[in-house]
């Protein structure tokens, strides 16, 4: 397939393909972080994760409309405001959902699956009633469009770079929160041994609520970021949910590092295979490999070793 190309052409294509893999990696990390926190740390299978992401996307849409109408001069910077708003709104809704629904279901993991699936249907229909069934177009500031030319052939999409930066900084923030803060210490204590954590005075119900809110808020940030690369419609969240679960389960449910490693593995495998095979075949092969590895290591790549 490479007949008749000069080596410099090939080099630049491979450079761009590497970039494509990295940008898929950052998308996966963003999608999966929120879910990994909720699923991994709390054991709740949140089927409405995609809908929380779309809530973030709609928040971005509304913010962009607001800036266009009232603050056109600041339009170039609206995206940062939108991301903060998306985080706040989604985590507020997450806390509410946890209080109304999830906290009653902690000992019934399969029921959380059904309940959150129902929630996802309710949220989809709510979006449809409020924003209409059609997808909405989110206007992006001019500086985010287009590509950044390194050489004549190598052009890096600016929005891809931007998603990478967001993914990286979110991952670092989550790491610091989980492993370098008092809150994180409490979360890990509750995950490892709930009764003992409660015995030493940790408010485990409060920790649960904050964790669910944090996961939902990160989903909101992801949703805001994805308005740059994907569609914003009532059922767009469905497109992400399968990949998200795949990344989290493959990485090992309780390990955030595992999530990141698995996102890297899956994204590189997929984008490399997409280049040499057709898109559908690449997906099939990726899934096959993941299924194979999960058969050998049912706990995922990086399972947390706990005494049962």
């Amino acid at each position, binding site marked *: 397939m490479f007949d008749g190309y000069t080596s410099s052409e090939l080099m630049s294509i491979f450079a761009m393909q590497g970039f*494509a893999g990295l940008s898929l990696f950052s998308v996966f990390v963003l999608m999966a972080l929120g879910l990994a926190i909720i699923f991994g740390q709390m054991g709740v299978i949140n089927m409405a994760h995609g809908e929380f992401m779309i809530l973030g996307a709609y928040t971005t849409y509304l913010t962009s409309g607001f800036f266009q109408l009232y603050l056109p001069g600041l339009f170039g910077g609206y995206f940062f405001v939108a991301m903060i708003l998306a985080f706040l709104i989604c985590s507020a809704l997450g806390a509410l959902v946890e209080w109304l629904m999830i906290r009653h279901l902690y000992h019934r993991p399969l029921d959380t699956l059904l309940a959150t699936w129902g929630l996802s249907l309710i949220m989809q229909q709510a979006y449809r009633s409020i924003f209409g069934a059609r*997808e909405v177009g989110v206007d992006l500031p001019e500086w985010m469009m287009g590509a950044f030319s390194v050489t004549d052939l190598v052009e890096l999409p600016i929005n891809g770079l931007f998603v990478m930066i967001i993914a990286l900084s979110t991952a670092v923030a989550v790491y610091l929160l989980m492993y370098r803060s008092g809150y994180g210490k409490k979360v890990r204590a509750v995950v490892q041994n709930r009764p003992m954590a409660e015995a030493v005075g940790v408010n485990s119900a409060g920790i649960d609520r904050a964790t669910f809110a944090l996961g939902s808020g990160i989903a909101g940030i992801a949703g805001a970021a994805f308005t740059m*690369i994907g569609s914003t419609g009532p*059922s767009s969240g469905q497109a992400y949910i399968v990949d998200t679960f795949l990344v989290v389960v493959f990485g090992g449910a309780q390990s955030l590092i595992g999530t990141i490693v698995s996102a890297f593995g899956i994204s590189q495998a997929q984008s490399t295979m997409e280049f040499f095979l057709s898109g559908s075949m690449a*997906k099939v092969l990726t899934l096959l490999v993941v299924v194979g590895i999960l058969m050998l290591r049912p706990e995922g790549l990086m399972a947390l070793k706990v005494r049962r």
Partner: protein
Amino acid sequence: MGTTDTTASGRSFGKGLGFRKSLMTLAASVMLATSAQAATPGTAEVNTTGLAVTDDTVTVGILHSITGTMAISEIGSVQAEKLAIKQINASGGVLGRQIEFVQEDGASDWPTFAEKSRKLLRQDNVAAIFGAWTSASRKAILPVIEQYNGMLYYPTFYEGLEQSPNVVYTGQEATQQILAGIDWAVETKAAKTFYLLGSDYIWPRTSNKIARKHINKLGLNVVGEEYYPLGHTQFNSVINKIKLKKPDVIFASVVGGSNVAFYKQMKAAGVDFTDEKPLLLTISVTEDEIRGIGGENVEGIYASMKYFQSLDNPNNKEFVAAFKEAYGDDMVIGDVTQAAYLGPWLWKAAVEKAGSFDIDKIREVFAGIEFTRAPEGYVRIHENHHLWSKTRIGQAQSDGQYKVVYETEELMEPDPFPEGYQ
């Protein structure tokens, strides 16, 4: 239709008795048919199979998804069908009867389409069904509508390879959309190489098969053919492949949310479609889709369709104005929406030509039924139940509208079974 005597037919038969039996002879019905609408013909004559027809009304069914993932696409069709029905009623109805409709929701779920079509045919006894959008939903309705001998008016451009006696296809089958589009790219843009890209299901695959065959017949090359799962959102790899292969034309049939991702990522990768290097020719992006993608992301692409909202003819101006008045100024009208609008009008024309609501009598008169007030200009029903219509190429503008750059001189003949594809 029925072994069961439904309430609707029972009621209408009672009123029909007011006419002398001799009126029901062939001579009388011929006379009635030729005397246009001087007098409203009696229900017993125009409805011998127990459809929901009374002396003043006739009931039809509308069956689209208004919830679920397909609602995005199907709502435009519902709006167009309701508008057509309203306009027909305002102009006196069909055979002197006002149209009433029963609307059911297919909920983007194919078995639901089958169930609801059965309900419309058996319980509501509708005289026609306007509905379905995806091929999957049409295939789900097909056995039901054939079993109970109903008539479905199906609006979407689709892959062809079907010709049911119980369906009228008001959209284009694949060859009508594709052949003219490729010929245009070859003749006016000197295209030599093509890259075929689509979502992974029957319509893009069949369309690309037809496209590939036609391209090869012209002695030109397909340099890549590629499918992505529905809902796929990452197109960076294929964009790199396209950059490597440098085709003259990308022939795209990506659908749904993937569309948004594909065009946004093409734009982000530094592809400016207005340069036409490569030129992008799509058969899946109507004005409706552009609303979700954003006009700035598709500016410069070409689409091969039979209808664009910007078509400059008096019929279309009237249609667009009426549509916007009914549903708001920010509405856009895509190819399928216009095709859905044709359904009720073609049904009315057929009923009036047959002088009857009976499905079997309508079917006999279909061939040659024309609609001169069609927004797309003029259409005529072919004996294979598809429409003769023109194919047009439009170039997307940043405001989300298409500028028409080419239209076929003649009406394209529908050919649902092109040779070599059965």
